[in-house]
C-alpha cells in the first residue's frame, strides 16, 4: 500500500492538497482539496474525493461549511490541477459536475 500526500502550489495563496492511497495499481482512495489562504489560514473551497467508493465534489463557503455536494466521475490529480489552473478562485461559482 502506498500513501501519497501532495501539495500543489498554484499560487502563493492557492494550493491543491491531495491524498492518494493505492494498493498495487488500484487507487483505493483520493481526495483533492482546493484551498486558498484566508484570514483564518487555509480555507477549503472545493474538494473532490471518493470516500466510501462514491466519487463526488463538495463546495464550501468562506466559513468552511459545506454548501453543495454533487456526484461526479472519478478524477485524477492532473485533471483537477488543470481545472483549478483554468478557473482558480471562480471555481466555487462553476457547475463542477459538468467539468
Amino acid at each position, binding site marked *: 500500500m502506498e500513501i501519497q500526500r501532495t501539495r500543489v502550489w498554484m499560487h502563493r495563496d492557492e494550493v491543491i492538497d491531495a491524498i492518494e492511497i493505492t494498493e498495487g495499481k488500484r487507487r483505493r482512495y483520493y481526495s483533492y482539496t482546493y484551498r486558498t489562504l484566508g484570514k483564518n489560514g487555509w480555507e477549503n473551497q472545493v474538494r473532490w474525493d471518493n470516500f466510501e467508493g462514491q466519487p463526488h465534489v463538495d463546495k464550501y463557503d468562506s466559513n468552511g461549511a459545506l454548501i453543495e455536494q454533487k456526484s461526479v466521475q472519478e478524477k485524477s490529480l492532473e485533471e483537477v490541477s488543470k481545472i483549478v*489552473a483554468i478557473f482558480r478562485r471562480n471555481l466555487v461559482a462553476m457547475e463542477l459536475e459538468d467539468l
Partner: protein
Amino acid sequence: MRIESKITYSREEKEELVAQLKKRYGSLTSLQQKVAMRKCTSPEMVDDYMIWKGIEKKDAALTEAHIWKNAEMMDQLTTRRLELLEHIHRTGGESVMALTIALKRNYKNVYDDLLALEKTGLICFRTSGRKKISIARTSEILIRFDD
C-alpha cells in the same frame, strides 16, 4: 515549469505521525466514529482517517511531495536559504542558534529564512527541550520544463 520536492517517511516519522493523530483523536476507532458523523463538515478528518488506516497496514509506504506549477517558488529559494537547507540536510537537524553560529549569520535573518522554508514544506521544526530544531524534509528539488 514544474518544481518538485519529494520525501519518503521513515519508520520513525510514520510513528510520530501516528502519535500526533492519537493525541488529536484518541484512537482510530474513535476517529472512525467522528468521521461517520462529520464526514461532510470536516474533510480533514476523513483524510486523517484514511492516512491513519493506511499506515497501520504492514509495509505501507508514505510519501509527501510539494509541486510548484510556476517559477514563483524560485524567489523563495534564495542563495542563503539553499545554503541553510543544505546545511540542515547534511547535519540532520540543528537549533536556530547552532545554525547562526555555523553559518556566521544574524540570528533573526536565519530564523526568518527558516520560517520561509517551513512555509514551503522544505523543512519542519521539532522541539527538543527549549530548543527548536530544524529538520530537512527533502533531499532533492527537481525542476522540469516538460509540463
